[in-house]
């Protein structure tokens, strides 16, 4: 008798749990469709910005929920062109990515990010010309004394192929040259700590990751600062793009407008290490052509 009792109890508990789970799922679904949910997927470099701005936005726009996911630039662009998500975050122009039909996508530039060459402190170099950067990353020189540093072997650390930071660095820092095959890391934080601890190491990260453990070299004697990027003097920078598939829905358009508003651009953007889109005094096209605003 007690055995069958136990069976009944277990059955009841399971049944209640299933009903509760279904109920919760149903309730969440209901909320999602009655309120507005905007999903953004893509670039991990842009993710913290969209996340933070999304939280702020949800505070003032009750019922709107901004769901931000990483996954990488490639994922973001392919998901948004399939119409699977509302926003596709990207570090590069959609035109530059293979396999993406850029005509369908509308570009919204929400921030600018500068990228600096990162060197180990003991190399003894604080400035590199574009020519020297090319020579180092294409393997033409293999020792730092060939470009004015100590007698130390050069250790190149790349970001993963296809990452936005690497694409930007190769396009503007190496003038389109490809880096030789070298070790790859998949996050900027990791790159910084490896450069800091490995003798002779060189890599590159967004300005936001520069700290005292590494040397951020100037390029052709121009220091990697937000001011120099905004003035169009410092060459290695890129836009952070948010793509929509065709013209955005009103709710999405409102959020995009919020992202480029003066309020966000002057507070959140510099706080997270990006450069405000309003500060830029130059405009760069897909083909790299720069015009003064």
């Amino acid at each position: 008798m007690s055995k069958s009792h136990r069976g009944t109890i277990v059955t009841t508990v399971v049944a209640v749990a299933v009903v509760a789970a279904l109920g919760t799922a149903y309730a969440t679904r209901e909320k999602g469709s009655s309120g507005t949910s905007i999903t953004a997927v893509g670039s991990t470099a842009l993710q913290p910005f969209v996340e933070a701005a999304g939280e702020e936005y949800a505070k003032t726009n009750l019922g709107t929920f901004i769901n931000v996911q990483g996954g990488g630039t490639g994922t973001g662009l392919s998901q948004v062109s399939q119409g699977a998500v509302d926003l596709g975050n990207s570090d590069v122009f959609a035109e530059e990515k293979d396999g993406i039909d850029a005509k369908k996508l509308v570009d919204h530039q929400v921030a600018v990010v500068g990228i600096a060459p990162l060197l180990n402190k003991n190399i003894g170099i604080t400035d590199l010309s574009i020519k020297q950067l090319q020579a180092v990353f294409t393997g033409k020189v293999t020792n730092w004394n060939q470009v004015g540093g100590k007698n130390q072997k050069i250790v190149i650390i790349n970001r993963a192929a296809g990452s936005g930071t690497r694409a930007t660095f190769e396009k503007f820092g190496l003038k389109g040259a490809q880096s030789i095959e070298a070790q790859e890391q998949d996050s900027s934080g990791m790159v910084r700590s490896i450069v800091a601890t490995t003798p002779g190491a060189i890599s590159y990260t967004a300005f936001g990751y520069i700290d005292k453990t590494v040397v951020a070299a100037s390029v052709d004697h121009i220091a990697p600062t937000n001011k120099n990027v905004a003035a169009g003097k410092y060459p290695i920078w890129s836009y952070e793009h948010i793509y929509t598939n065709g013209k955005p829905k009103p709710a999405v358009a409102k959020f995009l407008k919020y992202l480029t508003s003066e309020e966000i651009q002057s507070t959140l953007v510099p706080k997270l290490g990006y450069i405000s889109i309003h500060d830029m005094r130059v405009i760069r096209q897909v083909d790299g052509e720069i015009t003064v605003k």
Partner: protein
Amino acid sequence: MDKITQKLMQKSESTKKDSLGRAISLAALSLIVIVVISIFTFVMSRGLSTFFHDGVHVKDFLLGSTWNPSVINPQTKQPYIGALPMILGSFIVTFLAAIVATPFAIGTSLFMTEIAQKRGAKIMQPIIELLVGIPSVVYGVIGLTVIVPFIRQIFGGSGFGILSGTIVLFVMILPTITSMTVDTLKSVPRHYRESALAIGATRWQMIYKVVLRAATPGILTAIVFGMARAFGEALAVQMVIGNAALMPHDLTSPASTLTSVLTMGIGNTVMGSLQNDVLWTLAMILLLMSLVFNLVVRAIGRKGELK
């Protein structure tokens, strides 16, 4: 029809429960089968499209030594898709880790089963079981903060490379191999040991000539299982191997494995593009290899059954 006949003709409570149980098990089984088949079909269809859709030659893929799928080789008009560096990298770390781990695993399990059974069961068993459950990211972090700087100090260079990967994998697969070897040694019948001791063998002779011989198939199975885990391990290896898709020419320069290239690249490529397809092909190779490991385990099990 009277009551008794009716009762006998009807399905009893127990029969109903019996068929219910059967239905539940069958449902669970078919779900698993469907999942496995779907995974296989999906990975295969995406992985094979490199060859059928993008027109890459299998030979170029398996034997080419330059990996850079986003760049077209000006001579052959084909992208650089030589996967040999990663395939070799995976096999080298796997075999090295297994070679280093096996003697330690056998030694530990012999100690636990033959030499100090009580202490083995009380202290070592829980420790080994705990080690099996440690998440791979923990091994990776330890590798990154302890092993990589250590290797850098001794051998120079950046410290990332096959040697660091081997050491991390060795620690990771050691408990797997050990716990399976312990089970095998325990299953060697007691009368084998008794017979050996009765005709005057020392303990070491008994272990070496009887127990280990009888347990060989089981130990081999344990090693293959450890290798399967090492081959498929992604995170910990990715953190310490350096991820350079270069042909491995020594143990302390950065190299890469199938899994590390896969996890690094998949988010940066666009679904359906060649760059994405070749990654799926790498995944397909991983899947086929795990199948091979499984078949090897079965073959060992069949051949070496205790008679």
